[in-house]
């Protein structure tokens, strides 16, 4: 946001409309209630009008990475963080290893199951209950 941090600091709720790829994403930045699920909007401009059309929910980078982790684990059954990290890199997805650890931890018990390997290494597999 432009200017002093006193501007967003003084408001109760802040929403942002940001360009992401071919879309505009409308999302909550600051809220005292439950945040909005970000939504994608497409802006079309012609000689007579400008229109914004709803294009569905925006799931963002985290969902994209998790989806690819699921694809990896469908192929390899069980993997450690470093191998998942390497596979994501090979598939062209850039994510820091600590960020990946956070995503995997967050998905544990939901989409994924976390187990400990022989040296205490964290191993991930798909949760059959998911």
């Amino acid at each position, binding site marked *: *946001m*432009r*200017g*002093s*941090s*006193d*501007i967003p*600091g*003084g*408001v*109760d709720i802040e929403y*942002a409309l*940001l*360009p*992401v*790829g071919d879309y505009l994403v409308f999302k909550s930045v600051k809220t005292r209630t439950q945040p909005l699920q970000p939504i994608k909007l497409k802006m079309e401009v012609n000689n007579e009008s400008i229109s914004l059309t709803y294009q569905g929910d925006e799931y963002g980078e985290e969902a994209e990475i998790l989806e690819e982790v699921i694809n990896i684990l469908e192929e390899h059954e069980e993997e450690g963080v470093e191998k998942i990290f390497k596979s994501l890199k090979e598939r062209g997805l850039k994510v820091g290893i600590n960020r990946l650890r956070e995503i995997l931890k967050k998905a544990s018990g939901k989409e994924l199951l976390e187990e400990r390997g022989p040296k205490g290494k964290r191993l991930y597999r798909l949760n059959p209950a998911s």
Partner: protein
Amino acid sequence: MEKVEQVKPTLVVIDSLIRVHRLKEDDAVAMSLVVGRLRKIANSGTTVLTIHHHKKGEGPLARS
């Protein structure tokens, strides 16, 4: 503020923030004054919706 007290609107839309003051946006003291005025309107029972722009060059479509 006087007008707001007189009309008592449900919603005031400020489009955009820069059009209602002549102070420096990057000056915290100046901006706390501006936000304080808006807060006063909000505290009187009127919802205040303010449009504020991102920096030029911010975001993935930004030009360098």
